[in-house]
């Protein structure tokens, strides 16, 4: 059986209904484990003090937000090439989740920057890119909301997502060119993977997994909601004609 079978709303509903409780449960478990471990059971960093605990939210949220964009891009491409309705709806469902994670990364970053860099915000390339990222998400969601016909909306947002991705890469480069930034170097005793001692690394990995699972669970629920709404609309429309 090809994976395209699941592009059929009925099959998708059946399958997602079966996996959803497991995904949601696993997400809750890993998140709880990772956060409790990170928050209560790790020592303070010698330089950053207790602020290092923010990493257990900041980094997973940031990477999940980036992955959400990737999911939307792939789903949009699938919709445009193969016109499977479920993939368009998955893209739609992922956007608000991605936006929330982006906001979380931004806010936790700001809370972290305050003690570390002495400022809530810096026009650092990474940060700037994330801000532009959040704007992309906002525009994308607004476009979905503004167009009434769902097929039209799916097509338009699909095109936007693809063009937007190209420009996101461009912006990344442009912003790097514009400012060399302090995100990495400034005060981090542990930016690159090999510098992170295991004490922090293991709970961090658990948290990253937790956020990804949470993303998956939320997207599944939201996609199921979208499918239900569309089905209800279809039924009501048919009723009207009958």
């Amino acid at each position, binding site marked *: 059986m090809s994976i395209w079978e699941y592009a*059929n*709303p009925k099959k998708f509903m059946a399958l997602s209904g079966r996996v959803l409780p497991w995904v949601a449960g696993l997400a809750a478990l890993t998140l709880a484990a990772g956060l409790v471990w990170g928050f209560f059971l790790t020592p303070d960093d010698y330089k950053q003090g207790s602020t290092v605990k923010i990493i257990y939210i900041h980094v997973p949220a940031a990477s999940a937000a980036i992955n959400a964009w990737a999911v939307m891009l792939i789903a949009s491409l699938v919709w445009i090439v193969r016109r499977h*309705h479920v993939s368009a709806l998955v893209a739609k469902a992922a956007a608000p989740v991605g936006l929330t994670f982006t906001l979380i990364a931004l806010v936790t970053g700001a809370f972290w920057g305050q003690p570390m860099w002495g400022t809530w915000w810096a026009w650092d390339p990474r940060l700037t890119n994330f801000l532009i990222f959040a704007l992309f998400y906002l525009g994308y969601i607004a476009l979905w909301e503004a167009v009434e*016909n*769902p*097929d039209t909306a799916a097509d338009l947002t699909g095109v936007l997502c693809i063009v937007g991705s190209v420009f996101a890469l461009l912006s990344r480069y442009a912003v790097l060119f514009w400012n060399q930034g302090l995100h990495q170097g400034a005060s981090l005793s542990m930016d690159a993977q090999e510098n992170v001692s295991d004490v922090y690394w293991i709970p961090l990995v658990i948290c990253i997994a937790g956020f990804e699972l949470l993303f998956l669970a939320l997207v599944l629920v939201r996609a199921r909601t979208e*499918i239900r709404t*569309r*089905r209800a*609309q*279809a*039924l009501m*429309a*048919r009723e*009207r*004609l*009958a």
Partner: protein
Amino acid sequence: MEMRVSDLAVQRGGIVVLEGLSFTLPPGRALVLRGPNGVGKTTLLRTLAGLQPAVAGEVSIPAESLAYASHADGLKATLTVAENLAFWAAVYGTGLVEDALAGMNLRELRNRWAASLSAGQKRRLGLARLLVSGRPIWVLDEPTVSLDAASVALFAAVVRAHLAAGGSALLATHIDLGLDEAEVLDLTPFRATSRAARQDAGFQEAFL
């Protein structure tokens, strides 16, 4: 130059509204579409004009032969009557502006801004676009809205001349056009009802 439609189904807002529609429109003939409000005349004409995809069935229309006129006239308020027509003449690559002005009795208004025309005068200008297009197959959505009796007669004469020259016309309307030679097709029987036809229709049907 024949338009052939077989077993066509069209959708609006994701719902199939008409299905099982077949007809041919040979050169020299006119076909009048009738049917109550909301039956799907506009939807059908837009589909034939290529603005939206058909749900099922086949439409065969020779390439570059169709001219479409919608509910709206597409006039630019700040261009004069003659400038409006000249633009479309250039787009279609014809030089028929003068003939069209004469044909729709617009000569006297040629230097007026389109903004200052009355409802019926605007409509006449919208119809003059067809003459300028030089296309043989006319697809018209309620062409005589707002026209007075004299202008309706003028329009009927223009359509007759078009048919005599080997053109054809498909017109949706609620009122009498005075085109007695035209066949009439009532769309009411083609209202989509059957479950089967709806099954794999528009985007909503994937969810039924």
